[in-house]
Structures are given as C-alpha cells and as structure tokens.
C-alpha cells in the first residue's frame, strides 16, 4: 500500500492507529483517581509528542542515515517558529500559509548552513553546526531584535496588520490560530463515566502532519536516495572512490531534515503563537539528539518513541513532588520510608534532567541502538524461550559479514 512493502505498511498503520487514538490511549486512568497524574491525554502534551516526533524524525534522516551529527538543529526549529509568527502577524491567522512559509524558510536556511558545514565531516561538522546555531541564537537575542523581539520573544499584538484577516476580534482580543475556521485550541471533551477524553483540533492537525512526515521518512529510508545516504555513513571514502560525489546527497539530507525541523517549529508556533530565541539554543539541539539516540538512531520508529518517551517522563516526573512520594511509600515503616524518599528524591521533580542524563548515558553505553534495540532484544529473548533449539541452529547459520 502507498508504495510500501508489507512490513512498512503494517508499521505505518500501527503508528497511525496509535496516534489517532492517542486521546483514549494516553488517558487510561479516571480523572479523579490517584493515578490521574500519569495521564498524558491533554492537548498541550499530546501536541508536544507529535511535534517533537516530527523534529526527531527529521533529525534522524540526517544523523541516522548519513551519520553526520548536527549539534545545531534547533536553529531551524527557531527559524520556523519565527516565520510562522510573522505570517500570523502580517497575513492572517490561518496556519496553512504560516506552516508552509516556515518549512520553506527553514529549508533555505538549512541550504545555506548545510552548504558551508558539509564541507567538513566528523567532529568538525558537529562544531560548525553548533557554531552556526549559537550564532543564530545570539543574533536573534541581540541585533535582530526588530525581527525577533529579542529576550521577550515574538508575540502577536492587537495592531498587527493581518492583511487577509482582522487585527482583532469583535470583543477586542487577538484572534486565535485556525485552519479555515477550525480553531487550533478548540477541544472537544468526551466524558465517559469517570473518564474525560479530550480531542483537540491542533493535536489532530499535528498528528496528521506527523503521519505524513513519517510516511515520507519511510519512503526516503527505502529509496535509492536513502541507500546512498547509508553508503555515506558506512564508508564515504569508498563511495567517493567509486566515482560518486556524496556532497549533493548529504546536502539534500541536511535540507530535508532542516525542513522537518521548520515544520515542527511552524506547528509549535501554530499551537501557541509565540517564538523565543531560547528555542534555538544549543541545549534545544541537544534535546533532539537525546530523543533520537534514546529511541534508536537509524530506525524508523525510534525517534518518535524517543520524543514521546522524553516528553512524557519530563512532564510526569517533574510533577511528582515530595508529598506524592510520601503518599506512595506511606505503607512502609517510617525510617525506611524516609530513606527511600531521600534516595529517590534527587531523581524526580526538578531532578528530572539528572535521570535523563543517566538514562541517556546508559543507553549510549549498553544499548547503542536505543529503545528499539532494547525491544528487539527482549523480543528475541522470548522467541528463544518458546522454540529453544530451533533458534540456536538459526543463529549458528547466520552468515558472517
């Protein structure tokens, strides 16, 4: 289906089903139960899942396929956000032109940076992209204030022209972002018994765009172009000696992943129409690196998993405070309870980044393939148990490289 083989079609359908049913799946606990804090089915968080999913899918096209580790990808996200907000300010509150513009602008920006950075490879490439991103961040923060509004960040105001729309609504407030009238923040709430499911327009727009980008990523992975990119990763020198110029391929991959980042930035601005320079800072670039590696670089589903994983635990972990811990461990004897809480406390709440750092190190050290590889290993373990001797034979007959 859609030009994919059977396995990929299944994957795409599973991902599509999961994304579209997310408001149900992420809300497994009744609203007023004690477990409700583990619910992730509210619009804001779900939007972040899919938007960062897009960002990570795009990053993976560059890093996962070509092995070029860019430490400046957040710059494209930031540029995308800025251009989307400018579109809201000047044209109209419709998100379609805004998202289109952010993709195009991020693409052009990526073309410029990529053209220069890709002259070098390895660590030099990482540092060049880092330098470009820091430069954009510093510029956005200081000199470009007329365009970026510096520290405050770019916001909508009542006296923006908005040529095709209106500067303000009838009651004198700033109009909201919409797609041909469907407001992004509109949420339909479905109350089923103790459950409260929320269906948000913005989420579904982002989810559909994420599915499209995911489909596109599968096509790129399976195409001859994708094979070329893999060749760059495995041995660029050999590729050059066979008479192929790898530069156009890597540049194309760089621009594509920049456009993905621009799309994510544009969507972010569409959900919440403001853009700040901190979106371009290199810690933000580091975050997408973390997501991709944690999920599994070079795999299709890995980056999406990584993005979801990080954003989910970031939200849930940072909400847990000492009081909640006490209520969990209250069944234990007092002394034990206090020691346990003292041990756990540094890793939750504000300490979430510590947990993330440790987790990330463990993944890099023991599980270079990320969560996807972990899942595969567990899967293999179970299969081996089921049919013990058969698999032993098959592992023996695996041909050597």
């Amino acid at each position, binding site marked *: 289906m859609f030009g994919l083989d059977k396995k990929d079609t299944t994957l795409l359908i599973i991902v599509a089903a999961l994304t579209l049913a997310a408001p149900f799946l992420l809300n497994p606990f009744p609203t007023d139960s004690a477990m409700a804090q583990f619910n992730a089915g509210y619009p804001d968080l779900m939007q972040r899942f899919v938007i960062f999913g897009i960002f990570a899918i795009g990053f993976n096209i560059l890093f996962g396929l070509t092995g070029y580790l860019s430490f400046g990808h957040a710059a494209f996200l930031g540029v995308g956000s800025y251009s989307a907000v400018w579109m809201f300010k000047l044209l109209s509150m419709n998100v379609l032109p805004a998202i289109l513009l952010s993709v195009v602008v991020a693409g052009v920006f990526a073309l410029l940076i990529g053209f220069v950075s890709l002259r070098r490879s390895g660590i*030099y490439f990482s540092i060049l992209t880092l330098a470009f991103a820091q430069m954009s961040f510093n510029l956005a923060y200081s000199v470009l204030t007329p365009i970026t509004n510096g520290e405050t960040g770019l916001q909508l105001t009542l006296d923006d022209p908005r040529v095709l729309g209106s500067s303000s609504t009838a009651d004198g407030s700033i109009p909201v972002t919409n797609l041909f009238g469907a407001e992004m923040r509109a949420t339909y709430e479905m109350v089923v018994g103790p459950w409260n499911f929320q269906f948000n327009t913005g989420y579904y727009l982002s989810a559909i765009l994420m599915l499209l980008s995911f489909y596109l990523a599968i096509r790129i992975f399976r195409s001859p172009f994708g094979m070329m990119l893999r060749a760059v990763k495995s041995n660029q020198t050999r590729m050059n000696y066979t008479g192929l110029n790898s530069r156009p391929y890597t540049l194309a991959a760089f621009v594509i992943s920049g456009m993905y980042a621009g799309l994510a930035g544009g969507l972010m601005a569409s959900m919440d129409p403001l853009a700040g320079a901190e979106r371009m800072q290199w810690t933000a670039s580091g975050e997408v690196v973390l997501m991709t590696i944690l999920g599994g670089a070079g795999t299709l589903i890995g980056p999406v998993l990584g993005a979801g994983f990080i954003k989910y635990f970031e939200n849930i972990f940072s909400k847990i405070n000492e009081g909640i811990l006490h209520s969990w461990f209250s069944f234990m004897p007092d002394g034990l309870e206090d020691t346990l809480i003292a041990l756990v406390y540094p890793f939750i709440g504000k300490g979430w980044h510590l947990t993330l*750092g440790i987790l990330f190190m463990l993944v890099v*050290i023991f599980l270079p393939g990320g969560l996807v590889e972990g899942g595969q290993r567990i899967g293999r373990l179970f299969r081996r148990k089921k049919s013990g001797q058969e698999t032993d034979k098959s592992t023996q007959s695996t041909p050597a490289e």
Partner: protein
Amino acid sequence: MDAIILQILNGLDKGSAYALIALGLTLIFGTLGVVNFAHGALFMIGAFCAVTLSKIFNLSYEVIDESQTDFLGNPLKVKTPYVESWFGPELGGAIIDWAVPLAILFSIPIMIAIGFIMERGLIKHFYKRPHADQILVTFGLAIVLQEIIKYFYGANPIPTPAPEALTGSFDFGAFLGFQANAVIYPYWRLVYFAFAAVIIGGVFAFLQFTTFGMVVRAGMADRETVGLLGINIDRRFTIMFGIAAAVAGLAGVMYAPINSPNYHMGMDFLVLSFVVVVVGGMGSLPGAVLAGFLLGILESFASMNEIKSIFPGIDQIIIYLVAIIILLTRPRGLMGRKGVMED
C-alpha cells in the same frame, strides 16, 4: 592607544579561561583521541570546589554574646566560624578571606581523582567506538555532573569573592605613563592571567623537559610503537587525563571570583572552547593556547562601541564567525597537524 591596551587587557582574562580549557581538551584529544564534551563540566566543578571550600571555612556555631544586645535588651546571638575559633580571629579571618586561592590546593587532588575515575570507569570503554559515541556519552556525563551540582548547590549563582587584598583595581594608565584612570584593571584579573600563564607554562615544561612528558609526546605521535617498546602508555595517558582535568578545574577555581559560579557555566564555556580548539587546530597544544588568547582579545575588541556602531551585534558572533572562516579556509586550524581527525 589606551583604549586598545584596555581591550587587550579585557580580552586576557576570558582568553586565559578559553586557553586553559582548550589546553585540557587538546591534551585529552591528543593523547586519548577522545572528544570530551564533559570538559566544561570539569571547569564548573573546579569553580564549585572554590565555593565548597569557602562554605566549609564559613561553617560556624552560634554563641550568645552577653556584651552585645539588640534593641530589646536581649543578648545577641553571634555566629563564629569554627576556623576563627581554632586559629584565632586574625589567622582565621585571613583563611576565610583567602578561601579561593586556598581552594587551588583543595581542588587539585579532587580534580585528578575525578579525572582518573572518568577515564578508567567510562572513557576507557569508548576508545574503539566512533567519535559520535564519544561525544554523546561525554555529553550525557556533562548533563549528569551539572545536575548533581545543581541538586546540591541550587540553580542560582553563588558569589565567591576574591581575597580582600586583591579586590581593588590597578591603574595601568598611570603605570604606563598615560593619564591616570584611563586604563583601570581589577587586580584579580591580572592574577588570573598570571596564574593561567604559569599553568600553561608548567604543562608545556612538563611535556617538554621531563622523561614522562617525552614518553607522552612520543605516545601522541605513535601510540603503538611506544607500546611495543614495553612502556605502559595507557597508564601515562590516564595520568594525562587527570592532569587535563586538573587544569580545567584550576581554571574554574580561579574564575569563581570573576563570575559567580552557577551550574551551567561549564556548558557556556565548553561551546566556545570547542571553537577555540578547532580554530587552533585539533591536537595542537600551542595552537589551542594561541587561539584561546586570540579569540578572547578579538571578542573584547568586537565589544568596543566604535566597532559595534559599524557592525551591530558583532561582539556576539565574532568568535563563531572567525571559526567558520578558519575552518573553511584552513581546515586544519591555525596550527593543526596533518593526519589528525582527517577521516
């Protein structure tokens, strides 16, 4: 003329910090071939060594002083640091005042120990893995170290003053025969520069004039052959890692009075130090030092008002701009050697 001298001086202290961190980075890269993204965190830990020592010195107990009373007539509680009660107010006060310089002694064993643990426990396992993996794992380590410090010390910068005697400023203008007060420069920054010069000189002398240093240099040039000669080069490289960590830590200790330490100061310096290393030439020690000072001074020139009025915002981007230009025109950096990271 005096404006130029002032800018050069202003560039020196930042340049010293860049040069020290870049020197450590290059030592690690040149010996072990590892790109250490956690080096900024070592700098930060050094600064927090100074914070810790000054906190330890200021540990105090409360005594009720009958001779002093508050406005209600109740006796006041007076805090007396333990150090003062042990050594007397004179010497004790001086010790508290000189906490930052004393932290140099305090930090060296700590930094070397951290360096050893890092190398033996973690980085050793990454020699054979791709550079991207090394970057990633040290990046993760940097986050972990940073968050640990944040947990214990909080997110706010902690002011750590320099000793009383060195807080004033030096009138360079009068010293050089210009007008008085034209070129004023804080003493501590002069101390920082001198300290950096001593450390850099020490590291170079150590590598150049000791047998140990000679073996290390030989190992940098050809690790395998040195190993075949029956020398345990790995152990020496581990020691070099410890030294590099100590250099970064010392740079941090002395930087504490210039900029109040906070948990992410390391990351801010790390990005720039990488740029410095690349500009100087990956694997070249003199290149790292030269580029560190050069970029520090360049940055301070770019922040002059005269230049900012022609190129607004140039001070924010000058370092990156220079790095990009150098990388594209002289890919090996200013003093890079052939064959380093050419893959």
